[in-house]
């Protein structure tokens, strides 16, 4: 009797095997020497998935030392890259995406039912079998916070020099320059030769660039929202602090331009579907300052309107802006002392913060909500450009 043996092609189970001696090469090619551009056209966060598949094989063969060693080398490798590229937005965003994705994978495939609710049966087969990596998840979460802080610092450093000229000095509304207060020269530091002058478009372009980098790299939408909330807070704080210290921008026309600029930013948030991020709300003090510059400042009714509208400004800030307010021309009167006293009397029961200026370095606490992936490990292809041919698919 003839027996035919049908040999079933070995299925890829979504694990990657490597020998211990190759670990430094793996971390070098996949982390420390990797250029994000080399991965264009591949699935976002590919390094995170490859690392998880390596961890999973070490777990599968019950080699705790190999798991320890790979995770430690990976984390140290990521820290090394971040240190080397501490002013590179793209690189920092890339490692934030990948660190968060690795953290999500360690949750999604932990075997903890709370993290498995959206898994397919196939994904459930790809869970860790032997080890509980809860403590490593904590380390990756701490690392993600550090990377997020570096990302914000880089973005703020790029945006900050633009804020004052784009929000307060640049005139994009036609005909508004004719109603500038007389007797005040434009700031020589930022406007005369145009070298340091930025329009609102420059801010918008920069934010478009941040947004597309983070989206392309597959950073979680909730994190992108938090990045923009933080950046909008800084725009608000830097612009308001400047307004509170400069007489030449405390005018009706600046109020008008400022409100227009803020509405452009609000429009940008809506266009990027970021209107639920809380970013627009962080601009409220600046919106109220713009309104204060535009409102009438004469009668008790005007005082009432100011107190009702400017709820995001402290009494001290309102009084300061009123004191700095510069009439447009000889027909507009200065704000009287009596009017300012009326305002102070109306607001005396408010429990306001004591400081005049906002802390523009304030950071909102960041959250990294669990975001499982629908991708299945065995569908991941490793491009030759990564030079990882020493990894064996298992």
């Amino acid at each position: 009797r003839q027996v035919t043996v049908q040999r079933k092609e070995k299925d890829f189970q979504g694990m990657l095997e490597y020998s211990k001696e190759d670990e430094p090469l793996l971390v070098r090619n996949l982390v420390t020497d990797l250029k994000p551009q080399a991965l264009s056209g591949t699935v976002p966060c590919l390094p995170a998935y490859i690392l998880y598949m390596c961890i999973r094989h070490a777990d599968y063969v019950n080699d705790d030392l190999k798991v320890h060693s790979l995770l430690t080398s990976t984390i140290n490798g990521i820290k090394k890259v971040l240190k080397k590229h501490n002013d590179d937005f793209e690189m920092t965003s890339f490692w934030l995406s990948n660190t968060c994705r690795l953290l999500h994978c360690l949750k999604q495939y932990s075997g903890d039912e709370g993290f498995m609710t959206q898994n397919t049966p196939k994904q459930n087969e790809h869970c860790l079998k032997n080890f509980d990596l809860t403590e490593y998840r904590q380390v990756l979460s701490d690392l993600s916070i550090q990377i997020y802080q570096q990302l914000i610092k880089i973005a703020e450093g790029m945006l900050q020099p633009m804020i004052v000229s784009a929000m307060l000095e640049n005139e994009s509304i036609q005909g508004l320059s004719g109603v500038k207060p007389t007797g005040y020269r434009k700031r020589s530091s930022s406007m005369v030769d145009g070298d340091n002058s930025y329009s609102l478009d420059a801010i918008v372009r920069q934010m478009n660039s941040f947004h597309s980098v983070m989206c392309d790299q597959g950073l979680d939408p909730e994190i992108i929202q938090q990045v923009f909330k933080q950046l909008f807070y800084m725009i608000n704080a830097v612009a308001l602090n400047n307004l509170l210290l400069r007489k030449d921008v405390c005018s009706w026309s600046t109020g008008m331009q400022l409100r227009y600029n803020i509405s452009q930013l609000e429009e940008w948030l809506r266009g990027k579907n970021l209107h639920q991020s809380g970013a627009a709300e962080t601009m409220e003090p600046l919106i109220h300052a713009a309104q204060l510059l535009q409102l009438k400042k004469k009668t008790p009714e005007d005082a009432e309107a100011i107190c009702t509208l400017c709820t995001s400004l402290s009494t001290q800030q309102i009084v300061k802006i009123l004191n700095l307010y510069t009439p447009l021309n000889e027909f507009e009167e200065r704000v009287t002392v009596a009017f300012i006293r009326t305002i102070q009397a109306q607001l005396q029961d408010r429990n306001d913060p004591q400081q005049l200026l906002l802390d523009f370095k304030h950071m909102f606490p960041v959250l990294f909500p669990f975001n499982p992936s629908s991708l299945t490990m065995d569908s991941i292809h490793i491009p030759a450009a990564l030079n990882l041919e020493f990894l064996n698919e298992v």
Partner: protein
Amino acid sequence: TSHRPPRPRVLLKAPTLAEMEEMNISEEEESP
């Protein structure tokens, strides 16, 4: 259908991020 209870996983103790950094620094110092 298999209803085998899963084997409990062994908790791998991890150093903190700061401890990891310290270890990494001392390793770098030791290496030539």
